[in-house]
């Protein structure tokens, strides 16, 4: 039995037996050393293999039933939750997981049956459907913030009601301004959440664990800075690397030593590539905004075939300063508040323009994910501002989770048309 047929059998099994038990069985099966060895042969890099191996063991921990579970939105300080040994599930990861397994039709249909509007972001709709269908373990805590994403707040509040854990639902309110008062306001919220969760877990808060999490997070930051620096210089860019595949370690697992280790491996791997680089590559450089589709798709292959490669992503930009482990809450508040998606749209625009210039990109793509107002609302201004520095922007309407909302023929023509424009410049 080949690797492809093993993968297909696994996916087929999940699609036909949609429940938590079948997912557990599948995770156990893939974790078998022989199966994992065969599965591992399909990984194109050491860091990719490490990511998959680690994600798998993490998912097994999530599903084993021995750990408290927290659902969390993308931009919350996961360092706090990891220091409390919570096992984490992110809607972006849940949506990606369901899309990758090809069960989105079912999870979206379930969400629709529960009054989720069709214009709500499919990450959250699919995650809600999957949670309703008990495809993921029941949460003990739900934590979200109103940083960028409003859908998370509302759908998570709904989930908290469904799972009857309204007293364990936390909404972190992000101030509009980045000043001292706002920082303190945010830090107090984080501190309260930390102590409240500790209290509900009936554990004595160990601030040293939190400090360690910040040290690990700083290590990740420092490796990621190096990775990004290498990517600025690496002309003949490794095809396999795409920062959009690293949502779980970059966000959900920040504060863990494993996530820091992953970025150390990545740095080492890319450095070796850079050392071997002899002459400038011929690929045109692309900046990618927002996330990517997580079901099987041809977008990045089409770009490659047409001489274009994504060399930087908005999501992998290091926007925050190194944190002070001795001042964990104010440091984490500072990290959150530095996010370019907070506050005035100019913050995001400045970040994008700076990345475009730093990486010397030839073009940019904004993947306009259905229902994501925070990202799509700025499309016009981003297009105009990038045009001022002679960088064409393709606003690619699609869906990261629902393949039915992203017709492959239309996507192909748009990308090819865009690459033809870039290649003719």
């Amino acid at each position, binding site marked *: 039995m080949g690797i492809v047929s093993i993968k297909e059998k696994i996916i087929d099994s999940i699609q036909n037996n949609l429940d938590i038990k079948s997912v557990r069985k599948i995770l156990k099966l893939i974790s078998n050393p022989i199966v994992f060895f065969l599965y591992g042969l399909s990984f194109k890099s050491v860091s990719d293999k490490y990511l998959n191996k680690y994600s798998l063991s993490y998912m097994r921990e999530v599903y084993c039933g021995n750990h408290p579970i927290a659902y969390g939105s993308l931009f919350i300080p996961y360092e706090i939750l990891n220091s409390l040994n919570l096992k984490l599930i992110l809607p972006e990861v849940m949506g990606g997981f369901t899309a990758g397994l090809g069960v989105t039709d079912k999870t979206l249909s379930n969400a629709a049956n529960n009054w989720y509007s069709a214009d709500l972001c499919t990450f959250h709709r699919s995650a809600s459907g999957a949670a309703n269908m008990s495809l993921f373990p029941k949460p003990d805590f739900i934590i979200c913030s109103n940083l960028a994403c409003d859908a998370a707040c509302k759908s998570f509040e709904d989930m908290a009601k469904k799972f009857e854990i309204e007293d364990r639902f936390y909404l972190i309110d992000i101030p509009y301004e980045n000043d001292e008062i706002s920082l303190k306001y945010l830090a107090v919220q984080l501190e309260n959440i930390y102590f409240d969760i500790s209290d509900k877990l009936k554990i004595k808060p160990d601030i040293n664990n939190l400090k360690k999490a910040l040290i690990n997070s700083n290590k990740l930051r420092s490796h990621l800075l190096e990775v990004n620096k290498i990517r600025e210089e690496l002309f003949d860019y490794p095809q396999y690397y795409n920062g959009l595949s690293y949502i779980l370690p970059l966000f959900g697992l920040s504060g863990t030593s494993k996530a820091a280790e992953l970025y150390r491996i990545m740095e080492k791997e890319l450095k070796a590539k850079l050392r071997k680089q002899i002459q400038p590559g011929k690929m045109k450089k692309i900046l990618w905004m927002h996330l990517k589709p997580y079901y099987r798709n041809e977008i990045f292959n089409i770009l490659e075939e047409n001489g274009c490669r994504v060399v930087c992503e908005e999501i992998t930009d290091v926007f925050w300063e190194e944190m002070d482990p001795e001042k964990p809450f104010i440091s984490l508040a500072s990290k959150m508040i530095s996010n370019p998606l907070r506050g005035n749209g100019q913050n995001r625009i400045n970040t994008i323009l700076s990345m475009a210039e730093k990486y010397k990109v030839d073009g940019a793509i904004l993947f306009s994910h259905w229902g994501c107002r925070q990202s799509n609302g700025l499309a*016009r201004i981003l297009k105009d501002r990038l045009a001022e520095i002679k960088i*064409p922007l393709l606003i690619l*309407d699609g869906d990261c989770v629902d393949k039915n*909302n992203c*017709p492959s*023929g*239309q996507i192909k*023509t*748009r990308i*090819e*048309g865009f690459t*033809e*424009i870039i290649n*003719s410049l």
Partner: protein
Amino acid sequence: MYSCGIDIGSVSTEAIILKKDDNDNFDICSYVIGRTGSDIKTASENIFNDALLKAKIKKEDIKTIIATGYGRKNVSFANKNITEITCHASGVLSVFPDVKTIIDIGGQDSKVIKIDKLTKKPIDFLMNDKCAAGTGRFLEVMAKALDIELENFGKIFFNTNEKIEITSTCTVFAESEIVSLIGHGVDKGKIVKGLLYSVADRIISMISRLGLEEPVSLTGGVAKNSGIVGALEEKLKTKLLIPFEPQVTGALGAAALALKI
């Protein structure tokens, strides 16, 4: 030297054969328009053979064949495939070299292409998304619902003073709306006028996003419908430049690009 461009659209397929002279100018030797049907491979082979026959040349005489349109990847005998965006731009510019905005309304898609005035190359484009409103198919469905030949839409547009607002943009809902209006005894001419304005509005929404720059050219099969031309010219307040046979513009552009290879 001969070249061929083949445009495989969702509804129709076009082929055109060009001959380049010593001064780098080209003549059109033949062009053919046919239905795409369900078998792209057969449609492309048939249309190519018909174009060869009409041009009185053999396949071996053609140096380069470029395929375009949504079925471009399925033309196995083509040397290259290029998107309809680049090909339409090339086709229009070979006829109207000063055009800065191109509107193409095809069977199932419509697009707007912006041309750089200095480089004479496309610099931006927009296409209709996921929905047939504002395309030839939309008009075909409505003509059927109204029981009026599509060719007569132009005459009706210019002979009718009033319009009925068509509020549905979805093809299915718009069809129901029309059936309901007919049921209420509304004059069909007013409905036709309203429909043509609604298609024009969809196109103008795309033009507005890219910014209108004149001269503007209209291509695609729908450009043969004087009603839509009238509605667009009235709303855009500009005269549209329409190539000699607007339906073959994509194929013409593909063939013109093939001459440069």
